């Protein structure tokens, strides 16, 4: 039971990170109809910048600058490429982001090489115990930060001008444009927010118990894709649920890997994808995604 609770707690914290990434994924899709495969390398860019800058700038400043760098990168991608392709086929847009991803990822991996860059979190590798249930401090702080950020995000999405503009243009882009909502601005802002969320997730993902920033950090981001998909690509609430679901499932599979050994070592890394396929079998638009209606 203790093990179960501990795994659950770890799963929630992992899931919170996935939810942050998936939220960015979803709002980009809502705002600009783009399925952003650049998200993995944006996350790696955030992690890399934070790790490299923390030597000269100190942790806090490095984290802020790293998050800013990621947001700016996302902004530039949106302005320079995505914005020019407004109205193109969804598949073309997805492929363009894959192209950008290749460039960014190749450069980052070249710079990182085979090193594991360490991010000197002030909370380092400490862990907290509540009764018998233990969790690393990093993961605990991650839950708190993610909760605040997600709360802020949903509040902004519901009440702020940007949120309303964004929901309006997701609902019906043309009408929203006629109402004076600048589609370009909405989309650019969505990318910036997604960049920030991804970088924040990166900040915690590379902390304890993970060793640090390495090219495999990219693979972690890929596991957030199932979170967005199984929640429903156009549902922000779905991203949250999907993230938590995937995080918990993965943590459980990792924790009980001795019992799951017949499925092979490292099975937990595949669990998010299996969960996704299982959900899509029964709900092709995800758990909370808008069902496609056809009118002839």
């Amino acid at each position, binding site marked *: 039971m203790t093990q179960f609770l501990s795994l659950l707690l770890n799963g929630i914290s992992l899931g919170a990170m996935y939810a942050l990434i998936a939220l960015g994924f979803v709002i980009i899709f809502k705002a600009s*109809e783009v*399925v952003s495969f650049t998200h993995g390398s944006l996350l790696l860019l955030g992690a890399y910048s934070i790790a490299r800058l923390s030597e000269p700038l100190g942790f806090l400043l490095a984290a802020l600058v790293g998050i800013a760098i990621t947001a700016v990168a996302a902004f530039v991608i949106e302005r320079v*490429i995505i914005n*020019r*392709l407004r*109205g*193109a*086929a*969804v*598949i*073309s847009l*997805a*492929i*363009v982001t*894959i*192209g*950008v*991803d*290749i*460039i960014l990822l*190749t*450069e980052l991996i*070249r710079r990182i090489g085979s090193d594991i860059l360490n991010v000197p979190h002030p909370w380092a590798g400490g862990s907290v115990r509540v009764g018998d249930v233990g969790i690393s401090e990093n993961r605990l702080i991650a839950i708190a930060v993610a909760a605040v950020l997600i709360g802020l995000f949903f509040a902004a999405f519901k009440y702020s001008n940007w949120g309303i503009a964004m929901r309006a243009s997701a609902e019906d882009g043309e009408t929203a444009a006629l109402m004076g909502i600048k589609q370009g601005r909405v989309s650019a802002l969505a990318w910036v927010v997604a960049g920030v969320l991804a970088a924040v997730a990166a900040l915690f993902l590379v902390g304890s118990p993970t060793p640090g920033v390495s090219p495999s950090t990219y693979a972690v981001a*890929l596991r957030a*894709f*199932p979170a*967005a*998909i199984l929640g429903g*690509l156009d549902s922000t609430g779905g991203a949250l649920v999907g993230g938590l679901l995937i995080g918990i499932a993965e943590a459980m599979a990792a924790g009980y890997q001795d019992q799951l050994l017949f*499925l*092979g*070592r*490292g*099975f937990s*890394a*595949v669990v998010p*994808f*299996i969960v*996704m*396929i299982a959900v*899509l*079998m029964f709900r*092709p*638009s*995800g758990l909370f995604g808008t*069902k*496609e*209606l*056809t*009118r*002839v």
Partner: protein
Amino acid sequence: MSESTLTEAPGAHPSGVGRPAPAGRGRSWLRPLLLVLALVVMLALPLYVEEFWLRTGFAAAGAIVGAIGLNLLVGTSGQLSLAHAFFLAVGAVSYVYVSGEPGGLGVAELGGLGLPPIIGMIVGVLLAGLAGLLFSPLAARLRGIYLGVASLALVFIGIHVLNSWTEVTGGFNGRSAPEFSLFGFTFGNRDPELYVLAVPFREAERLWYLGLVLALAAYLFARNILRSRPGRALQTLRDSEVAASVMGVNVQGYKARIFLVSSMYAGLAGVMYALSIGSIAPESFGLELSILYLAMIVLGGLGSVNGAVLGAIFVSALPLIFQRYADLIPFVGGGGLAAGEAARFLFGAAIVLVILFEPAGLAGIANRIAGRSRRPGGRVTEHPPDTPSRSSEPSPSDPPAQGSTT
């Protein structure tokens, strides 16, 4: 695609490859002539060219087969799939297991059926098709972009299986692929020793011809699919699923079937990949491979078979050429970029540029050049009348009100 092709018996004769130019152009002899010339050059190449180019050629032939298959799925029927690497892996592993000899490799005990390689190849293609068929109920229900992400899952599950199922796949270190042979004639260095015009025909030369035959067969098959009823149905389906189903196209059925065909292509490409490298290892079949295949068909031009061929040659040969001539190319080798990195930068940039400025890809550029040469002194029109409409970018996606019938 001009209407005149409709009446042509599909695949009746090899010269049917070159679509006869519409009447009145007066150049109908040029295309078959060029094709015959190209074929002769291809056949004679092993007599003159060194081994490196022949090996590159076989690798490119494998890539051509795979790219044509992926293009049928993504370009023609508009379903984004990132699972191509998985189906390649199924083909490669089946071949290696069915035709490989059982034996120990280090601590691992490898299984193998030791059947003739041609059977291994066929089983590889069929099993890849079966894997596609198993996934296709899901594929048929998902809209393009959901499928794109869902298909990611297959790649990761595939890598996991490759790493864990040591008895079949050789596990983390992989295992070597048996030489190909056909009715006692091996495609290896010896057995029988073979000289043609005093040029020794060794593994590279023999594989070159194998690649040529397989790639040509794959090409003709795809052309014929596209020109016949299913091809038209698929293109309608890509442009609007609603319109297609109203016209009586069985949307789910066609989606599932094209997935099957595409994965069989991938299976054959996987077998050829194993033959070209001489071994298989899990890391070769990662997401990167899927993305490379996507790069091929995007650069070549979505929906165009010729484009897939051009793209496959470009993407598969470039890193090898970079590697070989690293010291001749600026910025590559030495203190600069590694060959693979340089190639990846180039692919990434090329994908972005193609989608931004030339959605019809290399095939579109080739068409334009052909259009120019066809009208000497004439103005180059943006769209020559016989430009196949499907070689352009998939038409704008369905507005949200349309879409799948699910």
